[in-house]
């Protein structure tokens, strides 16, 4: 009796593992197929080719990778621990400021990166100490306000010598040391079979893309390691019921703080990458960016390792798709180019609502995790 029971439960477990592995393969394969299809379609003449080409460009741009990393951090906050962080853009901005200001002021790049991380670390501690003992909503309120306070502080004209005020810091002031690390050489390069042509090393180059997506892979792997560990289990337990975990003798506050800090550090790293191909502008990292990150997270699937990658890439490319198609189909007299852009954003908002209502687990999330009302 017990032997057969063991056998069935054992095979069920295997099945569950196989199922999740299959799901990951489907999602990964789907993403690759999507990119390949875009690459192929981009060779078509006319509008279809143009839209596909720009979708592909957006899908692999460094800013997308930067958002992926920020979303990975948000996933640790919300997906695994249940922390409502509404200020991920604030963490990104601190990372970006730390990096750009330090290098602008003549420090080596290592100091810049460490300064960005340190700023995000302190920010997480400051936000966490008063709010993590309270109910989740308070963290949401505090993070969104704190991120805005940071942005307005960065814009202050009096700080122009330090933060560059509203104009920000031009990329040329801090990109040098990063570009100097490049081993790709000079000149332009086209990805075989695609229309993707960029400088190997330059302003918006292959080197940044290589590093950015390499870091995405590294961060995803790190989250995979964390999520499967007993620490990850502890996070999910806290997400489900803090008091239950407390009653088992775990220091819930410390673990939540660790999660907040780790997620914030991912945010800071995302911020650093975000400004590498562009310039450091505080307004580029406002509330919008936080909500982009949330949309990408929910689209891909919270509490999954691959969800942030899939969600962010789709988030950017679907918007380009909507905008391109609207541009092509709707005559200019009805909607001009500026309006189609706004229309695309509206569609993104509607999409977010539809996801939350009809597919709350996102594209690759586990539906069973959401089946029970807590």
């Amino acid at each position, binding site marked *: 009796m017990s032997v057969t029971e063991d056998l069935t439960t054992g095979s069920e477990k295997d099945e569950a593992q196989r199922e999740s592995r299959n799901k990951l393969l489907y999602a990964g394969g789907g993403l690759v197929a999507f990119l390949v299809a875009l690459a192929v379609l981009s060779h078509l003449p006319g509008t279809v080719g143009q839209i596909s080409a720009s979708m592909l460009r957006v899908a692999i741009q460094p800013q997308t990778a930067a958002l992926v990393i920020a979303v990975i951090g948000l996933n640790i906050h919300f997906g695994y621990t249940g922390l409502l962080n509404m200020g991920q853009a604030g963490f990104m901005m601190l990372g970006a400021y730390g990096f750009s200001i330090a290098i602008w002021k003549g420090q080596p790049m290592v100091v810049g990166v460490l300064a960005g991380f340190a700023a995000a670390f302190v920010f997480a501690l400051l936000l966490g100490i008063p709010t993590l003992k309270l109910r989740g909503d308070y963290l949401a309120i505090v993070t969104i306000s704190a991120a805005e306070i940071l942005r307005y502080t960065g814009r202050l004209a009096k700080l122009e010598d330090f933060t560059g005020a509203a104009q920000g810091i031009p990329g040329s002031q801090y990109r040098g040391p990063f570009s100097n690390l490049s081993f790709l050489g000079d000149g332009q390069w086209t990805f075989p079979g695609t229309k993707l042509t960029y400088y190997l090393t330059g302003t918006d180059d292959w080197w940044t893309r290589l590093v950015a997506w390499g870091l995405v892979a590294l961060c995803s792997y790190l989250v995979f390691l964390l999520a499967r560990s*007993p*620490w990850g*289990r502890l996070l999910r337990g806290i997400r489900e019921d803090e008091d239950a975990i*407390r009653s088992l003798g775990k220091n819930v506050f410390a673990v939540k703080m660790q999660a907040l800090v780790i997620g914030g550090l991912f945010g800071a790293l995302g911020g650093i990458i975000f400004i590498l191909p562009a310039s450091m502008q505080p307004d580029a990292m406002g509330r919008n960016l936080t909500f982009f990150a949330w949309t990408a997270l929910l689209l891909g699937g919270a509490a999954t390792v691959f969800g942030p990658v899939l969600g962010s890439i789709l988030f950017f490319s679907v918007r380009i798709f909507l905008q391109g198609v609207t541009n092509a189909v709707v005559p200019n007299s009805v909607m001009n180019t500026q309006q189609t852009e706004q229309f695309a954003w509206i569609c993104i908002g509607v999409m977010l609502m539809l996801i939350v209502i009809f597919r709350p687990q996102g594209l690759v999330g586990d539906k069973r995790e959401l089946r029970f009302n807590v």
Partner: protein
Amino acid sequence: MSEVATRDYADPAFRAQLVSGVDRTPGAGKPDPILVVDSVVRHFGGMTAVDVDHLEVQRGIITALIGPNGAGKTTFFNLVTGFDRPSQGAHWSFDGKTLDKTSASAVAQAGMVRTFQLTKALNRMTVMDNMMLGATEQSGENLLKSIFKPLWHGQEREIEERAKDLLDRFKLLPKKDDYAGSLSGGQRKLLEMARALMTSPKMIMLDEPMAGVNPALTQSLLGHIQSLRDEGTTVLFVEHDMHMVRHISDWVVVMAEGRVIAEGPADSVMSDQGVIDAYLGAHHDMDLGDDSLLEDDAVKDMAAEVAQEDAEGNA
């Protein structure tokens, strides 16, 4: 105390002897108390929910905490386990350690683990994950070690074996890969108790373990609680079911309006006039643990009597 070496809590005679020397008065001192509570007071606005002067819980036996609704039993539980803070400077110690202002997690680490009246199974995690969370001192729960699997894999295996043993004992092993949310209410109670046992507690505090559990499962729950005691775990539980209280408890503490009003073995406490008054209002002279009380006729009789008294009171 020469017989200390041969403690056999499974032996009813031994337990009877343990409690025999204890005064049957509220706040009585006991030999070898595991939990000692002094002046625990909790106000909610103007209302005093709990006001316990002194209470000792004896090691190794099953102590029941009973009282009518609103007596402050659960609040008292929350205070002692660190889930709520006393309004004034209170003192309590557990197993020789002072716990006056300790957090809930530190109380649990000291070896006093509780369950909840409204079961807190972690619904969107598997039964096995629920159990694994109970284990203490897991090196894999350290953030820095967690990313290196070899550092915690061995321990994880050991914990898993222990969890399987416990699940087997609670008849939950076939469910180990199911989500806890798919279990029945009674099974969740079992799971919560099993999870609490994963911490290897010295004392387990059960908040209404029988609430919402069907009679068949009640029997097995009783068996589990008794076997815990037989293994030397001290049990303190809150319960409304007088049958259960009478059946398994060695000592009963009665609370009413936030105070401890009586203590003693089940039989003597349930015939205590003060306790009966607290439960049923004055004038009642029935034994609360009397089986016949649970029969419909008796309930009707009581209801009729109460109605009559009310009528008299109004007139």
